[in-house]
């Protein structure tokens, strides 16, 4: 009887849904932050190369 009452009153855990929401959130945030950081490095490298090319041309 007690176990039946506990089954009725205990809220459902649905933990996989909680883990899925957490995983999706942090994965997308970190992927986006990683993409920004990587793109910044690529652009900095390209700008440096173009400036060196310009300096070389002018000299």
């Amino acid at each position, binding site marked *: 009887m007690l176990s039946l009452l506990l089954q009725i009153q*205990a*809220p*459902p*855990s*649905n*933990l996989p*849904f*909680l883990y*899925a*929401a*957490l995983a*999706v*959130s*942090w994965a*997308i*945030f970190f992927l*986006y*932050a990683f993409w*920004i*950081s990587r*793109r*910044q490095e690529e*652009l*900095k490298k*390209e*700008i440096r190369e*173009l*400036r060196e*090319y*310009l300096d070389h*041309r*002018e000299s």
Partner: protein
Amino acid sequence: MSVRYGLLGLAMVLMLADLYLISMVAPTDSVLGHVQRIFYFHVPIAVISFLAFFLVFLASVVYLVRRTPVWDRMARSSAEVGVVFVTLALLTGVIWARPVWNTWWTWEPRLTTTLILWLIYVAYLMIRSYAPNRQKGALYAAVVGIVGFVDVPIVYYSVIWWRSIHPSPVVGPLAGADALNPTMLLVLLFSFFTFLVFFIYLTVERMALGEAEEDLLEARFAIRRAEG
């Protein structure tokens, strides 16, 4: 650079503390169970996406008045980060809806208006990509950034304007004084702060990326000019 690293470090520490508070300190909801803990990041993410679009609105107005590139860069950065946040608000909402409403998606007012919000700001980003030049792209996008913001209050008030199965707001003018118990409120406020710091970090980084993109365009232009 050190400020950006500082923000990233602070965001990381806050995220770990937030995860601890969400899983260990926040009480388990007596009706929904553990899945209700999605609330502590679903709500802050959604509200911060509104903040992002408000920044797009403000920066767009200032850009149209002053035409200085820094405001356009700010509007673009906020819009892109805002799209990431609203995408996550939709995804976490969908994951939460499945066990609670027994469906992944339903065309009810809050979900539908949020999807429209997502489409507006995806269109905002697309307009920039497809515009004939950078100045025109910035101009068209500023207009969309101002007009598109109209959907934000519609999303917020949708749960009282139309019949909705979505819960009523727990923050802002529509929130009741006793909408949350004190522990839940404390964890929610901490989550807000955590995601706000992360939002600031992402926006600052995206603005730096925008500046680098502009520098690159200038360098390419200088080379073309030098080569005649």
